């Protein structure tokens, strides 16, 4: 199957499988979590695969012990479970000891839309990005996901890769260099939308709507949330153009905060509007589209909100 036709999870684990076949130091630990793309790992590379059971804290610290014994370790579960549940273990056992362990979380934002706040990942990126030494990737397409498998293998240090459950159109060419941390995907003279993950795709729909109102918006994909490439971000935002950040995550701490921090630290005077989930948990059990409508994150609401804000 083509890479565009598979899930982010399968794109990641297919790429990781190819790496692990070449290097038996690569270990994959899951928190009692399976997937068809993991099956070949557990059958073909059984000595490199461990199901650590429903015990994420233990899994993180086991990963630390393996990493200090020469292994390159990946730990995998649903996004909040592999981050928030074991946050202190990630801080102390991965970041303080600067270990080559990558946490892979599936279910970015409202991927698990019908599962409630237990499974929604709306704070994970915000808390992971503040950890010293932690690299946080929030991919928007499968080309990027496969590249992150390789980058996380090659680059030492702790990392968090946050995968969506949906399939998205490809936005990047094969062999794109993702070391910049962000990309200007669409130019626009009137304003800039900075988005990440699935919201990059929402941003394309929003810009089409804005164009009907003669607003030409640029789109920036901020796919590495930490460390942020400040200089490039300031450069692509342009001078004095209004900036809107777009994420499903809680507004506090998320990409809106990242952009606000970069602007404040660099004396950037542009207007900034941060769109995302306002200070609440979502107890609606519905499709992602329904949740977006409920939260004002559907294309129409975002477009209306931006137009009103620009006036």
């Amino acid at each position, binding site marked *: 199957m083509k890479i565009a036709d598979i899930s982010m999870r399968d794109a990641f684990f297919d790429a990781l499988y190819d790496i692990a076949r070449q290097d038996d130091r690569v*270990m994959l630990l899951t928190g009692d979590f399976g997937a068809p793309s993991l099956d070949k790992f557990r059958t073909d590379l059984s*000595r490199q695969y*461990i199901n*650590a*059971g429903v*015990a994420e*804290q*233990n899994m*993180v*610290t*086991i*990963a*630390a*012990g*393996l*990493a*200090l*014994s*020469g*292994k390159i370790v990946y730990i995998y579960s649903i996004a909040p479970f592999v981050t928030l549940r074991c946050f*202190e*273990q990630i801080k*102390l*056992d991965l970041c*303080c*000891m*600067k270990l080559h362990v990558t946490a892979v979380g599936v279910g970015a934002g409202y991927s698990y839309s019908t599962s409630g706040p237990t499974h929604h990942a709306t704070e994970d990126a915000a808390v992971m990005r503040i950890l010293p030494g932690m690299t946080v990737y929030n991919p928007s397409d499968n080309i990027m996901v496969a590249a992150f498998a390789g980058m996380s293998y090659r680059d030492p240090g702790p990392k968090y890769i946050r995968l969506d459950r949906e399939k998205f159109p490809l936005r990047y060419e094969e062999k794109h260099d993702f070391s910049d941390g962000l990309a200007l995907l669409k130019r626009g003279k009137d304003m800039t939308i900075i988005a990440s993950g699935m919201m990059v795709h929402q941003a394309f729909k929003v810009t089409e709507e804005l164009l009907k109102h003669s607003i030409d918006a640029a789109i920036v994909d901020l796919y590495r949330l930490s460390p942020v490439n400040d200089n490039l971000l300031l450069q692509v935002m342009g001078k004095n153009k209004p900036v809107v950040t777009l994420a499903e995550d809680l507004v506090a701490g998320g990409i809106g905060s990242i952009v606000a921090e970069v602007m404040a630290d660099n004396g950037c005077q542009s207007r900034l509007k941060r769109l995302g989930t306002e200070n609440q948990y979502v107890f609606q059990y519905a499709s992602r589209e329904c949740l977006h409508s409920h939260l004002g994150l559907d294309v129409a609401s975002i477009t209306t909100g931006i137009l009103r804000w620009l006036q």
Partner: protein
Amino acid sequence: MTIGDQIIPFSPVPDTELSAIAKQLRRDIVTMISTAGSGHPGGSLSAVEIITALYFKIMRHCPSEPGWIERDRFILSKGHAAPALYAALAESGYFPVSELATLRKLGSRLQGHADRTATPGVEMSSGSLGQGLSFGVGTALAAGLNNKKYRVYVLIGGGECNEGQVWEAAMSAYHFKLDNMVAFIDHNELQLDGTNHDIMNIEPLGEKWSAFGWHTIEIDGHNFNEILSSLEEAKNIKGQPTAIVAHTIKGKGISYMENKVEFHGKAPNPEETKKALQELA
């Protein structure tokens, strides 16, 4: 030591010397905590015989090559007992004994809780309780995967057994059949704010470890014969990890500290230090 590329492991001392070494470690612990003006004497002193037996008798290790890949691993999960570990590392040759006087000083490699990125011989940075056993599981799993014969020793506090992660790790060590792994539980029956019994009852502790699938031995944690024979027994256990519930006395060796919860995290004053060193002479 090393000769050329060859690693010469630390030579185990005769059993008859262990008590004297333990006494020296206690002097080091009291002196360094007193000099620092803060630290955790009680839980450091209760673990002295266990740590002495491991570093001076049981473990294959090489102080001049802390990263020797074949070394047995000691993981101090109860990180506040770092002074006991530092004393053993210094006295066995990882760094000069004189460096112990820098405990908790700005710029020192010997901080209040051990930092593996700074201190030679420290396997794991610890200080937040409950995590060392999981780290030991990863280290012991790696031995099997890397075809290494090293053994893994983890020291856990009795109060630390309040932490849920200890039991996640206990479950997994049994599940993975890690017979290259030993957990010592320094069961001094006191924790920061009182007795285990009053704060959070962990009994029956030995039965809990047994129920989690561990080969469990209960010993007097200050008796070298019992420590050494339990470790010999552990080496012969196949297919399951061994838990050694070591009944100990918090503050052991210093009359006014023994079984006193207030010396969990308080340094002795100069007068108390003098008295302690007289008792340890």
